[in-house]
């Protein structure tokens, strides 16, 4: 791996690692939610600091160089993460729909109860 590329990779992975840690530290996310990102950040950091490991794995898999392996793997991983994130959003949307329906039906009952009690008190 060329030295310039290694330096960029180290800087990027350190920033990414720092960002994930910071998000947990500030309470914007919990470790259980950030686990996969932290894991990815560590892998990126190791890959950037010790490129020899990645190069050996790339050769074992018959891939020309570490950069191709990193690009290929990261794209795959990000696709899975993105699908996962989308599924979480869809689930949240479903839960919000159900909550809206429940709250609205309850609101209707409360309104009717109030009307009935007003009628009986008159």
């Amino acid at each position, binding site marked *: 791996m060329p030295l310039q590329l290694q330096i960029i990779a180290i800087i990027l992975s350190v920033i990414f690692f720092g960002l994930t840690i910071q998000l947990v530290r500030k309470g914007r996310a919990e470790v259980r939610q950030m686990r996969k990102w932290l894991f990815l950040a560590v892998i990126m950091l190791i890959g950037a600091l010790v490129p020899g490991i990645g190069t050996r794995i790339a050769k074992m898999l018959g891939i020309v160089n570490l950069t191709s392996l990193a690009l290929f793997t990261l794209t795959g991983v990000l696709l899975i993460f993105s699908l996962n994130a989308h599924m979480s959003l869809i689930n949240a949307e479903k839960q919000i*729909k159900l909550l*809206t*329906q429940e*709250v*609205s*039906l309850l*609101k*209707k009952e409360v309104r009717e109860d109030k009307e009935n009690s007003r009628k009986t008190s008159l």
Partner: protein
Amino acid sequence: MKKEKILLIIPAYNESEGIVDVVAQVAAYCQKSPYHIDYLVINDGSTDNEEALLLLHKIHHVELVQNLGIGGAVQTGYLYAQRKGYDIAVQFDGDGQHDIESLPQLFAPIINGEADFTVGSRFVSDSVSDFKSSGARQLGIKILSVLIKWTSRIKIKDVTSGYRAGNKKVIDQFAERYPSKYPEPESYMHLFAKGIRVKEVGARMFERKTGESSINFKKAVGYMIDVSLSILIASLLEKEK
């Protein structure tokens, strides 16, 4: 003899212009009908003064605390029907497109045990509907109808009709699962998978009396793609005997 409890689910979003008249017609029909018919307007988080009108005229309704779209609004009606123990639920548009006088055609086959679910149709021989929708829409309806026939072997001519009635089995099914967007065509596939018997019956429909349709060319293309894909994927649902 048991008298079936029937609920008319009337979704309405920003229909302040016409909802009071529609409900007045419905209420008059409910009173003269020998059946036990109630109605429930679902105010789908309207941003006009629909809620104020519903309250002012003491119209039986639920106000959704936020807009859920047609699927979520109709499903709220099915949830209500399920909880209140209704035997039949009928979807009825709040924009005045459906003729309340066609109601018996919809629930008669369910009461007689001929079907679990009925669709009010403009395209069957016993329909007296003069309004058939625009040519482009009819073409879209035909394509979806062919797709449903091709995937399920069941022919429904008016696949986008929102004038539909279902028994308790259907109420339970739709309370549990109902598509949020463009629900009608896809929901047939869910019903077929559950072995629910569907019958198309003639019904009169009118052009919408108030408001405007929000569908333009771009949306129509998106609609056809979304609905066709939903039908194809729903055809893979495991069939219950």
